[in-house]
């Protein structure tokens, strides 16, 4: 019996990672979503919460993207060892946050996703959040697997590549998502006029 149990555990583990397991869930989700469409509960088709990816935050906690549902999400992809663009992207995020009126601040989540998950361990992300005085809950730092990161970047239309072990080229894009995870606005470039981005957030936030 013990022997059988071990086999079952192994199979269960493999099953977790096998694509079929996912696809069966997906198939269920499709049937479910057809039923659900009548209600308002379903995640919209364009929502990033359709992505099955798992992440770790700066406190070492596992988090599913879906957990962000229900807030306005402002997202940017960076890496902590970056010397050129990222500090400015961080500054841009801070600048945007400042302009959101006090009564709406609680409804907005700011998310930094690492494009260098190998280097950016949760400890490193934590240190980065401290250095930048972004320890409040509204600042979230995430790292995932290389594959999930690549996929997530594809969704955000962020391009990046490693140009040396410590350096990446990447698009500088800040994306705004509504409460259900649909992308509403993207701001591209560094230190650009963020009026439109801020206005989008204010319009969305409750």
């Amino acid at each position, binding site marked *: 019996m013990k022997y059988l149990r071990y086999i*079952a555990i192994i199979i*269960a583990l493999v099953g977790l990672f096998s*694509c079929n*397991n996912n696809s069966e869930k997906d198939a269920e989700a499709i049937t479910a979503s057809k039923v659900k469409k009548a209600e308002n509960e379903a995640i919209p088709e364009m929502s990033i919460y*359709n992505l099955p990816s798992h992440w770790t935050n700066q406190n070492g906690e596992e988090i599913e993207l879906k957990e962000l549902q229900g807030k306005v999400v402002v997202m940017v992809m960076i890496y902590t060892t970056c010397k050129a663009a990222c500090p400015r992207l961080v500054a841009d995020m801070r600048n945007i946050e400042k302009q959101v009126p006090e009564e709406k601040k609680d409804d907005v989540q700011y998310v930094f996703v690492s494009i260098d998950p190998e280097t950016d361990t949760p400890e490193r992300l934590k240190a980065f959040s401290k250095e930048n005085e972004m320890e409040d809950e509204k600042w979230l730092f995430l790292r995932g697997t290389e594959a999930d990161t690549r996929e997530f970047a594809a969704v955000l*239309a962020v391009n*990046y*590549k490693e140009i040396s072990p410590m350096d990446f080229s990447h698009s500088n894009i800040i994306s705004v998502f509504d409460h259900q995870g649909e992308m509403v606005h993207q701001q591209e470039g560094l230190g650009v006029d963020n009026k439109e981005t801020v206005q989008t957030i204010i319009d969305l936030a409750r």
Partner: protein
Amino acid sequence: MKFYSPALFLVFSLLFCEVAAQNDNMALVKGGVYLPLYGAEDQTVKIDPFLMDVYPVSNAEYLKFVEEYPQWKKSNVKTLFADKSYLTNWKDDKTYQGLPNAPATNVSWFAAKKYCECQGKRLPTMDEWEFAAMANEKVQDARRIETYNQFILNWYETPKTFKNPIGETFKNYWGIYDLHGLVWEWTLDFNSVLISGESRKDVDKDSNLFCGSAAIGASDLMNYAAFMRYAFRGSMKARYSSQNLGFRCAKDIEN
């Protein structure tokens, strides 16, 4: 005995995926070190040995996939994962147009990626693809051979090659067909191409390419042929699809 029912379910779900997995029709690419035409400045890239599909995925194979995984049918696919051009030439969920052995095109990156995962495979990385594709019939790296470049450029000028059957171009050094001459192909990290001006290095390379010497030598043609591929990748988004863009899968070597 309650314990058995979830276990049994997992056994079945595992079997289901295993049935779909197949290693046939893959060629071994032994790997090596190469200098990408459009990578980081003067940096060689090491390619580990890997397996690559001999042919791009065909219409008939793709139909089988959407039947097994109905969430990827034309009428079911989520718009996050594929835009309106997905399988645009299909009459309905079960009817593609053109030859069964023509390459499957109008498939988004998400769909191509999922297809490969469900075969127990993955998409090739851009470096793997480029490495395999620099071979002609005889040698691993034919990038400086004029006939090799001329073949690619002639193809660029030939309309509607996506309607051709797979396996009719040349068989390359590794035993792989159709890397050139049929359709463009998705790669896993297609979004690592930066040609839109974020990277100064890349921009310099562009200007080198276009403002270089007037003499067109073998290396200019070679750069041009490759630049077209990279520029195309750089212009794509993961939910886009195109009638001249197909894909094939790759796989790590099992130890």
